[in-house]
């Protein structure tokens, strides 16, 4: 018998009351990153133990086999609690769904249960120094070896949480004789395998969440191919679609929320300034729209519809909103936002938010790319002429 939605909600609320971590109470992602990841793992394991992980995933892989309305209910109950989305969006929101859709029975039973329990954290090895927006231009290669496996050589970059990850989904070129989108394969990669070197990169905020990853003759087995050889672009597209949905659904937002800015204004007495009131009203309207849109998309998923490229709107909305709210924070905080007493525990928050905001317009596909996606796939506008579509990859001009 399926648990009723009301019973499920009660169970979630009960879990959160005992094990939930109120937003802001977890170790700071920015200042105590390792503790944040450790707390995230503990939280996810507790969720799994309570029978609340993998709500829509099949029972065979440790999920609950429930409909999307249960996931929505979970999200609603979790409002105000830390969800550790920065740590888990890639694994649970992106890699998991790809393995569910394209993985072999063996891959699903081997990788999904530990992913759900956070025994293994996953990362996304897609972007390269020479292939960002133009992801299909990647040059990391996988060359067959004698026993049916592959040797991987190349470099990845901007890999979020690679330094905390156990496994990855990786894209590599398996046939440079085919057109750029047709000679790519997706692999599961063990991040502890010999030849994998992870070097954290410092970001504009000063944090080091993303990394460069060097792949020096790393061996993967024949069972590590996800989907079919040379059909990795399909898998990549599926993953990127899930990325947009996940980000629209549960944006990995800036720590500077409108609530925090309003609280600051109330504390500092900047509440009657009509400029501030108007700016707060504008930000409130923007925030409401972004939230209601995310709910609409979740509703579409709930009734089994593919929100597809529309999720790009949610991504753009999240980016715009973060920019608007962090700018408002600087307006309200004034000079304190840009210079603070080192003893003040909340001192750097507003500057951090302002520095964080641009990342939302780049990660997961830049604003420009999202607009092109919307223009071509939602509005059906004619594509740009593409010089590289049907030419064998090795003959393409690059650089």
């Amino acid at each position, binding site marked *: 018998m399926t648990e009723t939605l009301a019973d499920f909600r009660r169970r979630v609320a009960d879990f959160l009351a005992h094990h939930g971590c109120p937003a802001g109470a977890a170790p700071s992602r920015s200042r105590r990153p390792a503790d944040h990841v450790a707390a995230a793992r503990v939280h996810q394991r507790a969720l799994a133990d309570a029978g609340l992980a993998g709500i829509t995933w099949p029972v065979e892989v440790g999920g609950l086999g429930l409909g999307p309305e249960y996931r929505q209910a979970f999200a609603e109950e979790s409002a105000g609690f830390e969800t550790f989305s920065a740590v888990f969006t890639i694994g649970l929101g992106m890699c998991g769904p790809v393995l569910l859709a394209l993985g072999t029975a063996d891959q699903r039973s081997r990788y999904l249960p530990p992913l759900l329990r956070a025994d293994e954290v996953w990362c996304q090895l897609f972007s390269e120094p020479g292939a960002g927006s133009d992801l299909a231009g990647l040059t990391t290669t996988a060359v067959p070896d004698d026993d049916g496996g592959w040797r991987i050589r190349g470099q990845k970059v901007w890999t979020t949480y690679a330094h905390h990850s156990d496994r990855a989904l990786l894209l590599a070129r398996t046939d440079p004789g085919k057109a750029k989108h047709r000679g790519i394969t997706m692999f599961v990669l063990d991040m502890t395998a010999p030849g994998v070197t992870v070097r954290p990169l410092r970001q504009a905020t000063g944090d080091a969440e993303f990394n460069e990853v060097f792949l020096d003759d790393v061996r993967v087995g024949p069972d590590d191919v996800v989907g079919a050889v040379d059909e990795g672009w399909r898998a990549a597209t599926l993953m990127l679609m899930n990325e947009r949905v996940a980000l629209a659904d549960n944006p990995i937002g800036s720590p500077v929320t409108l609530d925090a800015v*309003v609280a600051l*204004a109330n504390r500092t007495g900047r509440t009657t300034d009509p400029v501030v009131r108007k700016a*707060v009203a504008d930000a409130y309207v923007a925030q409401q729209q972004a939230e209601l849109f995310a709910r609409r998309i979740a509703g579409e998923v709930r009734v089994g519809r593919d929100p597809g490229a529309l999720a790009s709107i949610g991504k753009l909305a999240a980016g715009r909103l973060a920019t608007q709210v962090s700018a408002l924070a600087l307006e309200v905080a004034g000079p304190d936002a840009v210079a603070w007493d080192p003893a003040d525990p909340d001192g750097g928050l507003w500057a951090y938010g302002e520095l964080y905001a641009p990342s939302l317009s780049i990660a997961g596909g830049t604003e420009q790319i999202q607009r092109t996606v919307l223009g071509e796939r939602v*509005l059906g506008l004619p594509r*740009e002429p593409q010089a590289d579509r049907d030419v064998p990859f090795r003959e393409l001009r690059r650089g």
Partner: protein
Amino acid sequence: MTPYTDEHDQLRASVRGLVRTDRSRARENTGHDVTLWRRMCDELGVAGLAIPEVQGGAGFGVVELAVVAEEVGRANLPSPFLTTAVAGLALAAAGEDVGAIARGERLATVSFSPDGRHVPDGDVADVLVLVDVTGASVEVVELGGVPRTALTTMDLTRGQAHLDLRGAPRREIDVPAHRVAALAATLLACEQIGGAERVLETSTAYASQRVQFGRPVGSFQAVKHLLADMLVDLELARSAQQHAVALAADTGTSAPVLDAASRTARAACSRAFTRISSDGIRVHGGIGYTWEHDAHLYFRRARASAVLFTPGDDADRLAAYAGLAS
């Protein structure tokens, strides 16, 4: 979640089929098409759609009104639908005799300006519902003998008049002012979404077909991204609008929740329709700037709608809903 079901699609198709016939009227600025209005009332019962059957209406609700408002906005139809639907429903809720309003024979309108200035459809209305949101009171004013000055309007699709209400007989009626205000704001948002949606469609179609430099102009990123931004504005605003419709349709919605949602929807949709209709002109180039093209009619409506029904304290209230102390 969308408040609409398959039955609403049928209503939508019926309204769309009917209002398509009227195109050039707005440009001539001759007011609404009385013949079309009669057909909308006789064939589809739009004037009394949400008025209970015992009072002579069709007994549907706010969601159905929303569908019609979207279609009226889409067609940019000069029509008293919005004002008479809002005022008629308020009068019906107060137990007034609304039979003739439900049939569309008498036109009611609604205004939030106590001085009788800038009353929408004030040039044609027979009765006025005057709402004082701050004082939480609603009055009804018969407009028979009231002197009026029909105004020259930027928006060629909705008339306005200054009404001289001194000496006009007024009577307070028993209906919650905030509900009337929320319905007006919400249905206006529906009109705006309909208009914005149409502008985006025609602009997209034009950009796909107009060729310059040997390519459809919509294949140029500058144009494509402009259209994509229009889509983003539209869909974000639509989420706020649909949310407000769903809450307004639910009689159990509390006053502050309804007020916040309807003000949010109006602010979002005003901004979206303004930007979209303005960029719609740009996407069309020179032809979009001609009198004969519809683009300026939508832009005119967008600019005028953005200041319609505004009690003037929107930013202040919205900031308060965001939690800002006053």
